[in-house]
């Protein structure tokens, strides 16, 4: 049975778009399915200062628009849709897309990334959109002149806290340890900001007030003393990390204890022909540039896999390898 596609990519962050760029330049005519959170986590950021080549930084959404345009330029086909199911148990691999029906493919690159983690204390989800948010760039605007809290101690938490000082009267960072996980440069920026203060060794026990349907404060618990304290404020921004988007492949691919796709020998997964790139398989580095790097690796791994397939000779012509190796 012939497949509709040689390679399909799920996800449109740095990993997915870089995989698409390389696969397109290898003449594999990749199909990329963007997903709901198109562009990935960088769409929710402001200035990206660690993307090599932009010495003055670049806005996250602008960087993603550039990557998308570059992938399109070399012949990537993009579907603005969502994958609803995959069947990796038979050949060819099958993908169900809400906007395009069922598609079969020889190789699949999964770059579905990770999404913001919630506190999962009940009140956070209930007050989502009513004062609790996981997106500072989306919702900071609604807290002009108001006191708010940022939960978390990593780079994203510091970035959000600093960004939110543009709007909020005061930003309280609540962190469950007594030191930050964030990089030194981000820590220094946050600590030097007069609008930011810190509540250490504390976790959020409750967000009030679910009954009123708006945020009026948070109850924090000191993890060392157990002492509870209420902080009156109007908004809560959660930046405690991410969970991998692997619901689609659960039970079909090997996942680790935290739900990340397990890769070996580069980007190979437990199913031949299925590759994973970016934050969906990386809980260590989680950078735009490492995601892009692994997207490139996945495209090269997929290309080599396809070269070894029996139908290779009929479907892929010789000029391809010439094009791949031609220097720019």
């Amino acid at each position, binding site marked *: 049975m012939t497949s509709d596609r040689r390679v399909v990519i799920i996800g449109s962050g740095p990993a997915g778009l870089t995989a698409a760029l390389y696969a397109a330049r290898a003449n594999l005519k990749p199909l990329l399915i963007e997903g*709901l*959170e198109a562009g990935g986590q960088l769409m929710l950021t402001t200035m990206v200062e660690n993307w090599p080549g932009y010495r003055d930084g670049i806005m996250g959404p602008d960087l993603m628009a550039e990557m998308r345009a570059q992938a399109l330029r070399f012949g990537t086909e993009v579907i603005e849709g*969502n994958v609803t199911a995959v069947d990796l148990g038979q050949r060819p691999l099958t993908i169900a897309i809400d906007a395009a029906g069922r598609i079969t493919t020889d190789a699949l690159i999964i770059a579905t990334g990770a999404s913001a983690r919630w506190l999962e204390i009940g009140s956070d989800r209930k007050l989502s*959109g*009513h004062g609790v948010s996981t997106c500072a760039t*989306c*919702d900071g605007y609604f807290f002009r002149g108001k006191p708010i809290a940022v939960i978390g101690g990593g780079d994203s938490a510091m970035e959000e806290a600093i960004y939110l000082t543009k709007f909020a009267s005061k930003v309280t960072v609540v962190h469950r340890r007594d030191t930050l996980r964030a990089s030194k440069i981000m820590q220094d920026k946050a600590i030097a900001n007069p609008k930011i203060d810190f509540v250490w060794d504390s976790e959020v026990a409750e967000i009030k007030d679910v009954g009123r349907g708006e945020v009026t404060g948070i109850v924090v618990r000191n993890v060392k003393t157990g002492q509870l304290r209420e902080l009156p404020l109007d*908004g809560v921004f959660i930046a405690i990390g991410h969970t991998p988007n692997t619901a689609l492949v659960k039970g079909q691919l090997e996942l680790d204890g935290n739900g990340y796709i397990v890769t070996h020998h580069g980007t190979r997964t437990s199913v031949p022909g299925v590759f994973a790139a970016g934050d969906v398989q990386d809980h260590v580095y989680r950078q735009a540039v490492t995601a892009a790097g692994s997207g490139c690796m996945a495209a090269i791994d997929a290309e080599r896999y396809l070269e070894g397939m029996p139908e290779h000779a009929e479907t892929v012509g010789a000029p391809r390898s010439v094009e791949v190796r031609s220097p720019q």
Partner: protein
Amino acid sequence: MASDKLKTLTDSNFDQEIRSGVTLVDFWAEWCGPCRRIAPIVEQLAGEYEGRATIAKLNVDENPNVPGRFMIRGIPTLLLFKNGQLADTLVGLAPKETIAQMLEKHL
């Protein structure tokens, strides 16, 4: 494109426009990344539900009063009104199917 079927609401025409029937309002802003993702979905729905429901958008930057009234603190948010009464709320990104289901529930 169905853009002409998508109504633009403002602080001044809001109450008038949602008074009768089922109206779905997309609260958005230029600077909101996820809003850009939901916009084409809402636009498609405007075409598909023409004559059955009013599909509209409201820019929260230019119209602060209506978002304030409904305590909107995050976007994208979709509010569904039935004969002027708030009947349903959907916060954040949602696939087209979920939004269509919300509409169907009230039609």
